[in-house]
């Protein structure tokens, strides 16, 4: 997959949750543009075009980052802090999707500038519905600040 064509960066260390998410996104035809990072360090490397991702460029960020909180190496809140704290990446929409019910986490997340915060439903169907709505909302209704040369810039033919 072309590194500049990634729509969603999914950051989650739970194999089950990753598969569920990809499955739900596939149903909306979004699955082929998802990149999965298994820990906070890989997520940061991806977003900051470092480590194994030096071929990426800040001009082609993902349209959305789906971020879990509990991650190995670097946790979700740290990732959020760095992404929202750097002018090169702070405009990337970040959605925290976590099983944490901590009110404190919500408060800190919004303080750091998370775009939205969702709790992963326990129910399989609810989870799927949530991912579908997320995809639709953030990739279709929302206008991301990216400049990929895609269909947005080409007028519809008549």
């Amino acid at each position, binding site marked *: 997959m072309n590194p500049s064509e990634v729509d969603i960066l999914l950051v989650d260390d739970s194999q089950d949750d990753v598969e569920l998410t990809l499955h739900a996104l596939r149903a909306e035809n979004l699955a082929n543009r998802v990149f999965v990072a298994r820990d906070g360090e890989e997520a940061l490397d991806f977003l900051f075009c470092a480590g194994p991702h030096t071929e990426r460029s800040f001009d082609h960020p993902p349209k959305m980052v789906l971020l879990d909180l509990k991650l190995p190496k670097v946790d979700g809140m740290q990732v959020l802090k760095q992404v929202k704290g750097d002018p090169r990446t702070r405009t990337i929409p970040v959605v925290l999707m976590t099983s944490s019910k901590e009110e404190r986490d919500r408060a800190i997340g919004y303080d750091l500038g998370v775009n939205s915060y969702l709790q992963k439903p326990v129910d399989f169907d609810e989870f799927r519905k949530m991912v579908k709505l997320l995809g639709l909302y953030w990739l279709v209704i929302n206008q991301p600040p990216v400049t990929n040369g895609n269909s947005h810039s080409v007028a519809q*033919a*008549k």
Partner: protein
Amino acid sequence: MSSAGTKLETESSAQPGPKLRALLVEDNALDAALVVRALYKGGFDVSAHIVQDEAAFTQALRTQRPEIVLADYNLPNWKGMESLNVLRREGLDIPMILVSGALGDVTAVECIRQGATDYVLKDSLARLSEVVRRALREKDERSLRHRMEEDLARKVDELARSNADLEQFAYVASHDLQEPLRMVTAYTQLLAERYRGKLDENADKYIGYASEGAQRMQVLIQDLLAFSRVGRNNAGIGSVDCNAVMADVLQTLAPAIQESGAVITHDALPAVWADRTQLAQVFQNLVGNAIKFRGKEPPVVSVQAEKTAQRWQFSVSDNGIGIAPEFAENIFVVFQRLHARTEYPGNGIGLAICKKIVERNGGKIWVESRAGSGSSFKFTLPFHGLDAAEGSDCEDIA
């Protein structure tokens, strides 16, 4: 104190018309008279003013407005060739003819190189009037050409400004019209939904007309905006890989392709020098049309590229409903449609946009087709941008 100059006039009843105003730089009265007589014999009616130094010369230039200067080479107080400097200083394009005793060829050529129009020996004055005639004729031609060049430059300027104004107007008009139009569209639709069946029988119909009209206007304005935007932003010109562009276009058209069962193939396409976004628009419009204007069978579309002497020639060919040859030029005109809106949707701006883009990039676009037997839309693009293209493409069209 310089002499104010003397005057010599000929009086001719046989040659009516304006007198040739000549300015003579000559200190010998007899020589001056001989020059005037030579001109008279050559068919000129002459009004000659005679000066001997720079001050008088300059003064005479301003007051007499001579058409020709005839200067001796050597004078006691001046040199005839210096008159050229004065002419240059005054910004006057008046032919200067050296009328002199023997000079020697080298000097004569040198004088001409320095700006003298011609030279005539004092003992060959018979040539003089012919030389003068030629000098005056050349001066006239020069003036005419100069005027025409200025005219042309001015017209080009006006045209460019007028064009820019029109484009600006089209853009602003369509852009600013969108907002109030959005209000009309939204609320006529709302009225239609909210009050369906609740007012008298004509109300639904009338509201429906208003609503449809508003929606059509919206699309028209959007199309106009798209059309006027072409060329506003030429930032993206560079080398473009057409294969990558086609891949993008196929992705954008994926729903239409799937719905129609279209089969779209393309050759290995070249890289061209163009604006990527605009080129994508051309391919998208042409392929989209090929899919839209299909016949009973699923559309089969092929995109090819051929190399000619100076350009790439692309063709988008389909098996659709085709176009009768008498309409082949019409379809590229803004908002021209060949079918009713109910038969095939659209406003008829897609091809106009293609034409605008292709021509802006130095190419030409046309269609080869017959009603009922598919169409082949062709367009050309020069290899390396507008510099390599040499004007119109006429020779490429069979």
